[in-house]
C-alpha cells in the first residue's frame, strides 16, 4: 500500500503539463510493478478519456481500487495529488512576489502566450474531434450558443452529449 502511494506520488511529481504527458511515465511505473497488463492499462486510458476529470486522477482511482479496494483508490489518488498541493502553495507565494516586483510586466506577456497555447490546443484538437458534417454542426452550434446566449457551458456539454446519443444511436 505504501508502494502504491509512493508510486503515484512520483507520477504526480514528475509529470509536467498534465494529461497526456503523464501517460508514458504512468505506463512505465504500472507495468514495472506488474499491477496491470499492457491491455488493461490501455483500457484504463480509454475509460479516463471518456470520463470527466484529469486522466492521472482517473488512473490512480482505478488502479488503486484494483489493487486495494476503496482504501487503495483513495491512497493512490491522494498520492498523485500531494505533489501538486505542496508545489502550488509554494508557487502561489512566488506569484504574489513576482506581482509585487518591478518585473510584474512579464505577466502581461505570459497571459498572451497562454492565450496562444489555448488557440494551439484548439488547432490540435480539431482533427481528432471533428470528423464528420454532424461534428461540424455540433461544434458550430456550441460556439454560437456560448458566444451569443447566456446558456452555461455545462448545459451545452450535456446537450451535445444528448444530441450525440440520438444522432449517432438512432439517426445516422
Amino acid at each position, binding site marked *: 500500500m505504501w508502494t502504491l502511494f509512493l508510486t503515484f506520488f512520483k507520477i504526480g*511529481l514528475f509529470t509536467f*503539463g*498534465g*494529461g497526456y504527458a*503523464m501517460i508514458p511515465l504512468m505506463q512505465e511505473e504500472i507495468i514495472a510493478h506488474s499491477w496491470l497488463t499492457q491491455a488493461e492499462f490501455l483500457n484504463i486510458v*480509454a*475509460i479516463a478519456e*471518456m*470520463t*470527466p*476529470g*484529469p486522466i*492521472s486522477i*482517473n488512473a490512480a*482511482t482505478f488502479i488503486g*481500487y484494483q489493487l486495494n479496494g476503496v482504501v487503495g*483508490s483513495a491512497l493512490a*489518488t491522494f498520492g498523485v*495529488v500531494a*505533489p*501538486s*498541493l505542496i508545489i*502550488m*502553495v509554494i508557487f*502561489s507565494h512566488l*506569484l504574489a512576489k513576482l506581482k509585487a516586483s518591478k518585473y510584474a510586466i*512579464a*505577466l*502581461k*506577456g*505570459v*497571459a*498572451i*502566450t497562454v*492565450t*496562444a*497555447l*489555448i*488557440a*494551439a*490546443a*484548439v488547432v490540435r*484538437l480539431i482533427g481528432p*474531434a471533428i470528423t464528420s458534417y454532424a461534428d461540424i454542426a455540433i*461544434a*458550430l452550434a*456550441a460556439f454560437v450558443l*456560448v*458566444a451569443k446566449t447566456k446558456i452555461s*457551458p*455545462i448545459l451545452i456539454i450535456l446537450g*451535445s*452529449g*444528448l*444530441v*450525440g*446519443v440520438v*444522432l*449517432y*444511436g438512432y439517426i445516422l
Partner: protein
Amino acid sequence: MQVIWQIFSSFFKIGAFTIGGGYAMLPVMQRDIVDRLGWMDEQEFMETIAVTQSAPGAIAVNTAILIGKQMAGMPGVIAGCLGAVLPSFLIILAIAIFFRNILNWPPAINFFAGVRPAVVALIAHVAWKMARKLINHSFSLLLFLISLALIIFVPGLHPIWVILGSGIITIIWATQKQPEREA
C-alpha cells in the same frame, strides 16, 4: 465560510465537466470564476493558467489549489483540491465497482462522440474571448503570433519554455520602451 463552499462547489462543477483532458476545464472555469463570481479578470485568469501549467501535476487540480489559496488560504486549498478531485474519484470508483463494461455501451460512446466537437468549440470560444481582451497593441499581437507558431510548428517543445521566454521578452520590451516614453 461561504467562500469556502463557493470554491468547493465551483471546482466540483469544473471537475465534473472536464471531459477530454486539460483545457476542457477552461470554458466552465471561465464562466464560473471570471464571469459569475468575478474572482479575477481575464488577465489574472491567464496568469493563473500559466502558473498551473508550469508545475507538475494535473492542470485542473493545480488551478483549484492556486485559486483556493488566493481566495481563502489553506482552507481554500483543501476545498478547491477536494472539489476538483471528487467528481473523477467518485465516477471512476463507480465504474470500477459497477460498470466495467461502460466502454462497450453504445449510448455512452455516442454521448462522448457528441460532446467532443462541442468541447473543442467551447475551448475555441475561450481563446477568442481572451485574445479579444488581451491583444491590444502590435507588441501583444506579435507575441501571440510567435507563441502560436512556436507551439504548432516546433514538435516536442514544452509550453513552459514558451511561457518563460515570453515573460523575459516582455520585460526587455518594457525596459526598452520606458525611456522613450519619458523622453
